[in-house]
């Protein structure tokens, strides 16, 4: 994910929102055959922005990093002025609605019908001088990104966002038929496996080699009311390799240090009996992570000095309605180019 930071009322955001039709595409999943053919008709900026008419007339492109510059707004205004000077037939071409091609190989997944969708936020934490917890900035300080040509700039973000999908065959089973406070509720095996495999570690690192050392996630009925049933999730997870003080982890097949994480979990879920849906799905997991390759953007700073230690992390899950297109983007590990078996009950 590439993130741009707004500064108060950001004129760049207003310019894009008001004068463009903004579309964001996964570099691996750009669309069906007709969409790919359209993209091939002009030069697309690989990491950044391409300005093009609906009919395919290219008006320019910029690296995403260039939009951090002071000239961004004037740059966008210039492109819009060029566009407005074009004849109406170019600005408003006739675009034939294309029928679904059936070619789904390069199309992003959409949520399964009836799925519960949650945002999954991840960030690094640290303790300050008074032992207080705060957001860590070690992974962004001293990193390239704001100066042209200074590097890939992937470390500019502080919060990562991913998605969690819980299918319609899974989430109804979280509500007992006769709920009573204190009643234990079994997590569907596929959901528990998904949480452990994809969301129980340093999400910027993306993998713990699927290794599970231990897990104890307990879901219980917390409160039963006329219109709702509240559930509480408590537990701990240990994934990946163990951390051994002063002894760097062994290497994986690619020669990177293996990584691991120990997390504590607390979550509050509420099922609305009237709407027959969850209206609260808030889970927090905090703990420590370690390991990873020195090429990894998020861990570069730790490895720059050859340091081997744990770093505190935090993960927060939160329900989204799925009304916005970006809310329906797939979880990173549901993408076929990342991993297999997102919905499976065990690793392939």
């Amino acid at each position, binding site marked *: 994910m590439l993130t741009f930071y707004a500064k108060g009322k*950001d004129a760049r955001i207003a310019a894009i929102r008001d004068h463009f*039709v903004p579309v964001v595409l996964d570099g691996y999943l750009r669309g069906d055959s007709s969409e790919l053919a359209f993209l091939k008709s002009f030069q697309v900026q690989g990491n950044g922005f391409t300005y093009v008419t609906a009919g395919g007339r290219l008006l320019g492109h910029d690296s995403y990093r260039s939009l951090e510059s002071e000239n961004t707004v004037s740059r966008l205004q210039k492109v819009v002025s060029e566009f407005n000077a074009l004849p109406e037939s170019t600005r408003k071409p006739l675009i034939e609605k294309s029928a679904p091609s059936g070619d789904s190989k390069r199309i992003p997944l959409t949520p399964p019908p009836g799925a519960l969708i949650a945002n999954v936020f991840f960030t690094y934490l640290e303790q300050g001088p008074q032992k207080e917890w705060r957001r860590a900035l070690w992974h962004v*300080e001293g990193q390239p990104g704001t100066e042209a040509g200074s590097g890939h700039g992937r470390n500019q973000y502080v919060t990562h966002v991913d998605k969690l999908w819980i299918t319609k065959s899974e989430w109804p089973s979280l509500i007992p038929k006769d709920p009573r406070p204190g009643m234990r509720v079994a997590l569907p095996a596929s959901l528990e496996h998904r949480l452990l495999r994809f969301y129980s570690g340093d999400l910027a690192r993306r993998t713990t080699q699927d290794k599970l050392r231990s897990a104890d996630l307990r879901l219980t009925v917390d409160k039963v009311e006329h219109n709702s049933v509240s559930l509480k999730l408590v537990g701990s997870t240990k994934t990946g390799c163990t951390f051994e003080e002063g002894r760097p982890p062994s290497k994986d097949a690619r020669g990177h240090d293996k990584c691991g994480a120990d997390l504590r979990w607390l979550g509050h879920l509420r099922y609305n009996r009237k709407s027959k849906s969850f209206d609260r799905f808030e889970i927090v997991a905090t703990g420590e992570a370690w390991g990873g390759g020195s090429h990894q953007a998020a861990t570069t700073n730790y490895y720059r000095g050859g340091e081997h230690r744990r770093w505190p992390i935090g993960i927060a899950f939160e329900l989204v309605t799925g009304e916005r297109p970006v809310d329906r983007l797939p979880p990173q590990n549901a993408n076929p180019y990342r991993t297999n078996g997102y919905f499976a009950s065990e690793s392939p």
Partner: protein
Amino acid sequence: MNRSLLPIVLAPLLLHGQAIAQDNISPEDFPTLQQLIKPQEGEFAWYDEIPWMTRLQPARERAATEGKLLLIWTSADGQPCGAG
């Protein structure tokens, strides 16, 4: 990185449980941790305040109808708006 670009409130937050990996998360700490982990004010403005579309064809159709220019944001390594 230029810290001046970060409008994020990075105020320290005191938690009841101090050992983040060993102690259970206390109910009192839950909202504080949520606040700490979720995007800070302004951080996700590019995500939240721009009505990004995620498929090209409907975006082309809308651009043609409204007489607007397409702005296509793509990344060589996944989805720029996260989850990539």
